[in-house]
């Protein structure tokens, strides 16, 4: 049975989309079958992987207008369900309690077809994010070294605890990984890493704390519509993502 990983941080620009693409590519490098669901209304991931936006999107599937398998498209080395601008209407469209389980229903029939299903989320607290909490088995929280991003970890944790350990638990997800992006050998980054390790020890899930070294290649590869691992496999960031993916595979066995 495949593992569903939600890539979440309510702060924007911390590298959620990049981490999703790179983790997907790193899992594929380990001969894992991967599906990526773009749940971010900005649709950056769909753009980066050159997804065909004329095909059914995740919004169509959530609306029950299309079956899950009809929305899956092969983009490079992994499969993708593309995002849609219509996701901005999600909060107004999916208003019922039962709607929280829609994403789980979307994933259920294809869960056995993949080793990992990654969900790229938008930078906001929304119905879609709650759906991701409900559908996920594990949560990856990418962050940068600034205080705002690190505070985002606690927000995710608190939300997840509400859904998972509240009076009516709807989620079973665990925080599996805290990922410090654009890591440099500076005092600020070292402090940030220590802060993440402290958070990890405070959280009952005891997530992994990993760093991804800063690389200009990261943004360069995006313009070529490739992951760092395809564009420059020997790059530090590519190596870091591969190592993180290996650790995640071992942890989530």
């Amino acid at each position, binding site marked *: 049975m495949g593992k569903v990983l939600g890539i979440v941080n309510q702060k924007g620009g911390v590298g959620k989309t990049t981490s999703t693409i790179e983790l997907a590519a790193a899992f594929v490098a380990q001969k894992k079958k991967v599906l990526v669901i773009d749940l971010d209304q900005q649709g950056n991931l769909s753009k980066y992987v050159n997804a065909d936006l004329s095909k059914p999107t995740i919004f169509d*599937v*959530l609306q029950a207008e299309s079956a*899950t*398998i009809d929305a899956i498209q092969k983009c490079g080395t992994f499969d993708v369900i593309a995002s849609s601008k219509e996701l901005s209407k999600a909060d107004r469209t999916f*208003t019922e309690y039962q*709607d929280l389980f*829609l994403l789980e*229903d979307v994933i259920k*029939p294809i869960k056995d077809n993949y080793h990992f299903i990654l969900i790229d989320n938008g930078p906001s607290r929304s119905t879609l994010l709650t759906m991701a909490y409900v559908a996920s088995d594990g949560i990856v929280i990418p962050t940068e070294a600034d205080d705002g991003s690190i505070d985002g970890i606690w927000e995710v944790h608190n939300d997840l605890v509400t859904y998972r350990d509240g009076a009516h638990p709807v989620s079973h997800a665990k925080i599996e990984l805290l990922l410090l992006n654009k890591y440099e050998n500076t005092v600020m980054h070292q402090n940030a890493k220590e802060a993440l390790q402290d958070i990890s020890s405070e959280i009952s899930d005891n997530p992994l704390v990993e760093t991804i070294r800063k690389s200009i290649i990261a943004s360069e590869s995006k313009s070529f519509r490739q992951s760092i691992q395809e564009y420059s496999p020997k790059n530090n960031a590519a190596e870091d993502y591969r190592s993180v993916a290996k650790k995640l595979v071992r942890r989530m066995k």
Partner: protein
Amino acid sequence: MAAQSRREKLNALNKKRMDEQHSPKKNTTIVDEMLDNYTKASDSAKKAETTKEKSTKTKPSEAKKIQKHQEIIEKTVEEIVAKPIEEVSVVVPETESIPEIKAVEVNETNPIPEIKVPEIEKPVTDTLINKPEIEAAPTPDRDILKLLAEQYGLINVMDKSRVGRPKREGYYHKISLNLKAENLMYAKSVGGKYGGVTGYINYLIEQDMKKNK
């Protein structure tokens, strides 16, 4: 209840699509479908022919001929039996020694062995080979070549000389098709005339090309 119905709708839709995907139809190729069409067409044509044969009004003249022929044979056999047997002499070159053929004496102890009337086989008209009804197969309402090209990434190759057939246009030089067992058997049995299974598929595709023009 709208939300629940959305979940139910999604689950039903997914279930339906998964069932479709896992049904054996998934394994059939376009060529399989094509062969199915042609097989059905030839079967129906065969049925039509047999019913035609059964009807007394339009009994084929060939059957009458056979009956007449059989009567003549029976008559001549009777004549031969009635005649006394003579010695038979055969002219042979000297170098070759041929055993003498002795005349057979006919008496009570040595009766003439019964001469069997040779059974006349009905001319083979409705084998799978030489099937005129293959030509009368229905035209599928789509571009088979395009679908084949999409499914197998076919290349339009003109030269087929290396497989010992005359050069002609073909679209399936490098593909390998997984045909259903029954269709493969059918194509094998019919394909003799067209140069095997590949030749037969070639022929079907050519027919489609002609009809789709």
